[in-house]
């Protein structure tokens, strides 16, 4: 579900030069020898939006697959703020209780 712009972390109104610069930054951060999958994703995204012609083609004909795992990935990566004190304490105590429910079993 992430658009090529999301992957390259740039706004949709970016120029060819801005897109290229973002692409170069990203591949510097994720070189193909260390992050082959991420690199592939970045390269694919760049190819889709590197020129105006590609951008229009992508916009017209690209069909996103409704991928639930992609949504999950986005949700897990989105940091809004820090957890609240109450939520943290509740999560910890709930975890203790949940673990004790299967205590003897473990």
């Amino acid at each position, binding site marked *: 579900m992430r658009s090529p712009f999301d992957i390259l972390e740039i706004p949709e109104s970016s120029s060819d030069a801005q897109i290229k610069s973002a692409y170069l930054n990203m591949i510097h951060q994720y070189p193909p020898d260390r992050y082959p999958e*991420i690199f592939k994703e970045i390269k694919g995204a760049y190819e889709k939006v590197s020129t105006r012609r590609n951008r229009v083609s992508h916009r017209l004909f690209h069909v*996103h697959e409704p991928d639930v795992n992609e949504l999950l*990935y986005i949700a897990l990566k989105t940091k809004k703020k*820090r957890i609240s004190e109450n939520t943290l304490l*509740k999560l910890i105590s709930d975890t*203790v209780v949940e673990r004790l429910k299967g*205590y003897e079993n473990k």
Partner: protein
Amino acid sequence: MARKKHKKAKKRLKYKSRESVSPDKMPVDVLAQKAMEYLNENKFRDAISHFKILLKREDNSEWRDCLFEAYKKRSDELLKKGMTKDVLVILDHIESTFTLERDPVFFIKALIAAGETKKAIQAFFSFNNDRYKESLKELESILAPLLLSLDDETLLSDSGVTKEIDNNNPLIVYRDIVSDAIKAVTDGRDDACESLIRKIPFKSPYRDYRLFLKGLISYYNNNIAEASISFKKLPQSSALKALVDNAVMIINDNSEHTRMLQFSSIPHADITYIMALNGHDIKLIKDFLIFLKAISKGNNKYSLSLFKRVFSIIDIDIMKRFAVALLVNDISLKNAYHSVFGPISSFEENRIMALQYECKYKFGEANNYWQKCISTSDDSSFEDEDERKLAIAFLYRRIASNLGKMERDYDEFWYDDDDDDYDDITEHLELSLKYDPYHIETYNRLINLNKEMKDKKETIKWTEKLLEKFPDDIPALLEASSMAYERRAFKKAIDYLDHILEFDPINREARDKKIDIHITKARKHIKEKKFHLSRKEFAAAVTLERVGERNGSVRIKWGLMEILAGETEKGKEMIKEGIESAGSSLSALFLINIEAKRMGISQLLYKEYTTELEKYLKSKVERDGVLELLKIAIPYVDIDYVGKNIDKKTTIEYLKRAIKCSFNEADILTICLYLDKVKEYKQLKEFANKGMTLYRESNMFLYYYIWGKYKGALFNLSPSDSKRIASAIEDSKKRGDLKTAGMLISLLEKLLPNMRIPFSGAMPKFEKIFQHIFGDVLDDEDDDHFDPFGEIDEDDDSSNNRDDSSSKSRRQKKDIPYTGRLF
């Protein structure tokens, strides 16, 4: 409810039938044996009731132990089922039958698990004296988070708890420090948190919080690696580890594993932990999980109704894209989409419809919607007019592309006029150029389409148009040169090539083409006996390639020309130089023999070369020799030379002896190509068979095999061979080997000359076509699972010569007219 009652009644009945005698009336020894059996069989409920009866009759320490054991195990069983109220009842029973001091650790844990936190804390402090100190130690790390989760008021104002609390217990002493540290980290006061962490002693029940809080600080400062190190050091038994261990592994920024996450394989608890750590509200996380579950179950309508609830978790633009993706799969969700995102523009709606039809391979319907997209393009939100025009050009090209993919009904394969489709396609491509005149691929497509249609005028027109827009486009210049050459406009052809060589002086193809043109011109002059002009052309050709095989070839031809012109000595000298440059004597000698015949030179003048060639060919047969001969021979076949001279005989004789040589796949294909061109079907079949045996995966050999077997006359093609071809076409397409698929299709086209089978896109239904041609013969002859290589004939020439009376009678039986050729 009724079902539950019925179940209970059934159970009672079962119990009664199992024990004809009531436990109350059983003798003690039988009852004790029964009770033990139930305990061992994990039937704790029955065990408890039996031991209770036994203990009423007689106080026995062994039975008491067993009863306590049965109670413990029954409470575990109930906890796992989440029946916490029933656990509390059991704990009451234990309290009334035994003192709780029998096993305080169990009792406190059971209370916590049953949700009775305050009672558990109270019990802990009431037991926390010297007698139980050691056994209760393990409970400290469990109680620590619970104490933190209770606010001061709940903890201290509750009379029951306060009364028992020992203020000197480390659980109480360090509680405030840990509590403050947690508050500091959640508030973003990392420095304060760090100084508070230092105050938590290593031996306190809160020691795990030191690592946990350190890890959290790193995590929130995007230092995932550091966070991971801290969290990994947490002991396995710690509840804190369960909370963060998987979480950090999953969200590790630099982990490729993260990209491969599968919703179905991650525990929902872990998703909750991560999202909660990232500041999402727990209730929203629960909604989000419901939403993901609905989508993964394919309940799209329901999931669309949940979209609004998850907007605060995932950006609205992403959710919109996701919704559009759902719409492409199911347009009936349109209203649900409207209710969430508002109305969509006509352009967007048409676009989605077109994409939806394309997904279903309904290209005709898709094109209707693409056409509508063009007419509603004003309605869309393109950045500017240029972008809109570009989009229209894309849409016309898409329509043209879909036209080539459209599936036809069976009957539509039978028509004589191929032009309609091409006209439609070219019309749309031409329209696209109005909006995007600098799209080189479209010009190339138009050129190729017109070439396929053998429309030279249009091919030239589009090549010239392409060169107007892209004057330095090498493929276009080469194409233009070839076309000029074809119509014998040599000067123009050379001009195009010279233009290439101006900016790309070492362009191989341009140089080769230029040499070809000079040689052609030289031949023309030789025919007219204008040897002086011919010399000029040869001289020009030689300067283009000063060394090597190509130079040798030009010199040999030049030398032969000189012999023809009466300059025998000079000619032989040039031939000698040519042989040296060519590098291979065999190919040079072969070339001399072919060219001399072609120029009509008296055999006496080049006899020495013929003798030498024959000697060479008779002496040994080897792979390299075969390939060298074919390299020279194949281009001559194309200029209709073979068949009129001995050189075909020479090559064929040589190839006959070469059948046992070791060839690779490409070699055999080259040989087959040559044998096909010179119509040597018997040998073609033999080499193709060799290829099929050695390279079973290459369907190209089947093409040559069939072609050789039927000696290029396919009207006698048997049903089994037709099916074999069809099967190989499908196989080649699956492998992406479109060239082979195309060649095999051409076999069927030769069989059925009025039928045009589209090369790309949807294939016709062969079964249906064959059924029409052969009737039910196919069912009689072939298995359902057809092996394209299952019927390799070792020596089957009968197929082409056989009397086709059997097929005739079959046709008569099916009342299909036979006209000598099918249809």
